[in-house]
Structures are given as C-alpha cells and as structure tokens.
C-alpha cells in the first residue's frame, strides 16, 4: 500500500464510519473499483485497520470527553450502589447493556462473517439493502409522527416530541447493541442500524445519533485495543499508518460534528438514497469491469 492509498483509506474510514453508509462496504468496494492491488490478507493490513479504528474511537472520545467522564463515574457509582438515581447513571448502564451483545457477537462471529462476505459484489448488494433499511426506519418514524398528530408541525417541533437517549428502555438498548452485529456484513452500516433502531425506540434523531456514537466508542475502541500487540511487528510502516490514523480521526471528528448538527432536523432519507444509488452503481461498474 502506498502512502497516498493509506491516507485515502484513512480519510475514507474516518468519514464513513459515523455516516450511516458503511465504512466496511466502502473500504471493500472502492479499492476494487480503483484496481488497487494491496492484499487484505497481508500481515500488516490488520494493524493498519486497528490504527484507523483507534483514530475514529479517539475522535469520539475527544468529542464526548465530558460525557464519557460523567458516564464512567456514573457507571461505577450505580454499580457499587446497586441502584440508578441519575440520568447519566442510567445512560451508563444502557451503554453497558448495548455493548455486551455487540461484544459477544463480535468475538464469536465477526471474523467468520467478514471473511465469508468480503467480496465487492456482496458489499455493493448489502449497500443497497442498507439504503432500504434506512428508508424503512424513516417510514416507521413518519408513521409514529402521524400517530402522534405531529406530521403537520415544523421539523424542530416534531423532533422535540421524541425522547432523549437516557429514556430508552434497557431491552431496546440490548436489541440496538445486538443490531451492531449486522455491520459485520460489508455494506450494512453500524451507525445506520443503531440510529435507525434508536429512532424506532422513540428517540429524536440527534439523540439517536448521540446514542449510536456513544455505543460505538467502546466497541470500536475495544476491538482496536485488543489488536494493539500486532502493531509491534517490525514490518509495520508505523509512520504511514499513524498519519492515516490521524486523518481518520480528524475525518471522524468532523463527520460526527456535522451529523449531530444535521440531525437536529434532518432525516436518514438522503443517506438511504445515496446507499441505494452507490450500491447499484457499484454493482454495474463491478459487473462491467469483471
């Protein structure tokens, strides 16, 4: 992998990890469309991915640094006391509830599923499915808005009628956490399924995105930290990889800031349409180039 390719992959990973468009799908499809020949089975490729993920997780930690301090403190306070008394303690326990199913499924299934479906054709197909899922989540939200007689109101007022992340049920948190396993399929977006799941559970869009990003942090960070020993292999071009990770972190930070502002009144529809279009176009291009 050249330096330019590494930086491009870093930018791509950071930008697409938090947008509901599947970073894994893009990182499988785009190198294939460009005919890049780097081998994903190369022993230095895993450390590369590890650093990119650590860059993304680092960006999320910086973005939510104050909340994470409160969440960690809230977790230990509630765990020792055996009772939840504040919204932040509830959020801490919700995040733990959501992270556990993702961790179990990740440890036991991730590498098998990824290796089974790591083809650009499959990724392009699942990108279309991801787009349909996002549009489906928004249809369910619109139905909820109609039921609550909110459909004639301005978007900001509609959003204010829905709940904050701390109000989600523990069962919903566990289901949303387990849904993260769908993102092992290249083309299905982790943030897409978690934001969509949180919308169905009754959160406003911005809160759904916040819950999704908070839920992603321990999962991404954990997956990265576990693989850290692989970074000490002497064949790893650590300087290039660190530059790509830094770019990934910056792109993730900018993406998260953009999305949190966008979801004050925005919906998932544009991303759904993008995924359907990009997936279909990729299928056509891959078919003609094969």
């Amino acid at each position, binding site marked *: 992998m050249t330096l330019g390719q590494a930086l491009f992959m870093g930018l791509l990973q950071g930008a697409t990890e938090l947008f509901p468009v599947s970073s894994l799908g893009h990182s499988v499809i785009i190198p294939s469309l460009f005919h890049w020949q780097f081998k994903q089975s190369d022993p230095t490729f895993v450390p590369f991915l590890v650093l990119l993920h650590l860059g993304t997780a680092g960006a999320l930690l910086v973005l939510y640094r104050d909340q994470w301090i409160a969440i960690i403190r809230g977790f230990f306070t509630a*765990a020792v006391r*055996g009772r939840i008394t504040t919204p932040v303690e509830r959020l801490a326990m919700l995040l*733990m509830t959501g992270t*556990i199913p993702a*961790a179990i499924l990740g440890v036991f299934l991730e*590498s*098998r599923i990824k290796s089974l479906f790591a083809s650009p054709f499959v990724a392009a197909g699942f990108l279309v499915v991801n787009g349909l899922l996002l549009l489906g989540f928004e249809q369910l939200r619109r139905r909820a808005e109609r039921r609550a007689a909110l459909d004639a109101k301005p978007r900001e007022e509609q959003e204010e009628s829905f709940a904050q992340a701390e109000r989600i049920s523990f069962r919903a948190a566990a289901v949303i956490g387990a849904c993260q396993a769908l993102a092992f399929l290249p083309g299905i977006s982790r943030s897409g399924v978690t934001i969509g799941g949180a919308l169905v559970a009754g959160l406003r869009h911005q809160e759904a995105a916040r819950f999704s990003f908070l839920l992603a942090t321990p999962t991404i960070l954990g997956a990265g930290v*576990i693989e850290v020993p692989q970074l000490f292999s002497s064949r790893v071009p650590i300087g290039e990889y660190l530059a790509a990770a830094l770019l990934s972190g910056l792109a993730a930070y900018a993406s998260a800031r953009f999305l949190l502002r966008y979801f004050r009144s925005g919906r998932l529809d544009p991303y759904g349409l993008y995924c359907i279009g990009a997936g279909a176009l990729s299928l056509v291009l891959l078919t003609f180039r094969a």
Partner: protein
Amino acid sequence: MKSNTLAIGLVVLAVIFVVLGGLYYEGVLQIAVSDPHAAHHTTHAILFTVLAVASLVAANFARERTV
C-alpha cells in the same frame, strides 16, 4: 426485579464466566476461535472477564435490600 435468588444465580454465572475466561486464556477451550493453534485466546478471555463483571453488577442490582 429484586430477588436474592436471582442475585445468587448471577454471582454463580459470574464465577462460570471467570472459569471460561481462564480456560480460553490457557488455550484449553477451543470453541468458536479463529485460530485453534494459538496458545492463548486473549480476546475470548477478556470478553468472559467483562461478562463476569457485568454479572456481578447485575447481581448487585438484583439483590434485596434490608434498609
């Protein structure tokens, strides 16, 4: 849901998770691992340790309080 029976069950579950984590770390257990020849399955061991901690936290939530 407060119940001392449930709390004890969760503590027992935590102990089972610790044992499973230890067995994975020592390479005795080879169920659902990506590399069966590896000496240690650290990822699985960490997962079961986390599950043990989560079970203990849940047990603390589940136990009945006297005051």
